């Protein structure tokens, strides 16, 4: 594992290519949220060749459906949701220039192939550390699909958002490389 790397959004290609699976990162800048329902809508718009409600090129999407914010908090608890549910919609977004995704859990081969082709990175955040992660989210506003409630697309401003590079733009995958080191065959 390498030293902690500070990165800012939007991500340019040189930053993406510098990141390696296992790098601990702290992300600062604007990121967008999106989970199941929002992904389906974005995907449908791309298929219909219509404009998207948010810019995609160079951006990072965080797979999260936050809890409501208590008074005095920028957001409610906001940890990552499981990413594979977004897999069917993800290659289309990568083709549009999406550079980063933050979530937890496995990705499909189709997504990883598209990440390599389009030079994008998948970050893992620690699932279930929702209250703690929310501390790095300084501003939050609904920017598209308010009717979806927790599933709406929010624009977050994050400072030092903690994540780990899980699958890099070369296809190196921590979920594949790390468990065998601790596996005991019985």
């Amino acid at each position, binding site marked *: 594992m390498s030293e902690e790397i500070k990165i800012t959004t939007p991500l340019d290609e040189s930053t993406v290519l510098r990141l390696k699976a296992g790098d601990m990162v702290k992300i600062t800048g604007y990121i967008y949220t999106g989970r199941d329902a929002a992904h389906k809508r974005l995907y449908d718009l791309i298929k219909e060749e219509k404009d998207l409600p948010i810019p995609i090129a160079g951006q990072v999407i965080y797979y999260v459906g936050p*809890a409501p914010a208590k008074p005095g908090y920028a957001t409610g608890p906001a940890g990552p949701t499981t990413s594979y549910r977004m897999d069917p919609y993800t290659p289309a977004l990568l083709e549009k220039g999406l550079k980063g995704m933050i979530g937890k859990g496995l990705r499909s081969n189709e997504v990883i192939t598209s990440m390599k082709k389009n030079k994008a990175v998948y970050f893992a955040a620690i*699932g279930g550390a929702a*209250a703690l992660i929310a501390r790095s989210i300084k501003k939050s506003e609904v920017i598209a699909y308010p009717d979806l409630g927790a599933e709406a697309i929010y624009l977050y401003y994050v400072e030092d958002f903690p994540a780990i590079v899980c699958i890099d733009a070369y296809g190196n995958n921590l979920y594949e490389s790390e468990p065998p080191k601790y596996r005991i065959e019985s």
Partner: protein
Amino acid sequence: MRKIDAREITNKVKSLFLEANFHIGKDVLEALEQAIEQEKSKVGQDALKMIIENNRLASSEELAICQDTGLAVLFVEVGQEVCIINGDFTEAINEGVKVAYQEGYLRKSVVDDPVFDRKNTKTNTPAFIYTDIIPGEKIKITVMPKGFGSENMSALAMLTAAHGAKGIIDFIVDTVRKAGPNPCPPTIIGVGIGGTADKAMVIAKKAIARPIGKHNANPKYAQMEQEALARINQLGIGPAGLGGNITALAVHIDYLPTHIAGMPVAVNVCCHAARHAYGEI
């Protein structure tokens, strides 16, 4: 006959869901702390530290431990000498859930129709209530906000007697292996053996609420719990799935009589945020 006001049920359900969503159990916290000692992976240790810090922060500031505050699952034992007045049992529970999720700033995660509209009910209801009639004049309530990252990794196998204890453990371990990093390890694995297909899953879910460190009273099943846990922790998945030797904190097995022709085995997976609370009226 003891009369219990439906509003008392509402209030109890509300306070239990708030408690469960804000405050992780002492048993889970202790198991996580022990896991740091045992975990060999540095990244795994860091993930566990972050999880513990999150649990402490959520408790002290009364925030949801996880943004997925779950479907509202309840196991309710109703004394047969109880008479509920001034309202309807199910409505009273749903009202308690609705108020807890509103006042506690908890996420509403229920969609009304699973296939087509998938419209959010905006109240986190309906609750999913399992009721047992028991002797006495009390109502005993266990609430379990059940997150779906882990629920989605659950599995059922209709095994036969020939599979034996080894076949059951193989199925449990295989279910956890396939789940990989998805259910937010380290997990608590609830297992229900016997009964019918549906009943096996219900007792698997209820087994998750058993305090960590308490084994099945039957030593043969307690032995299976220990063997399954040891094998799960040899998979290498580790905390957050980033590699390590702590993939589960506990395996809880419960069992029931079953049919001569069958041996249902249900595995209900729970994330490290194993939230549940118990109260009596």
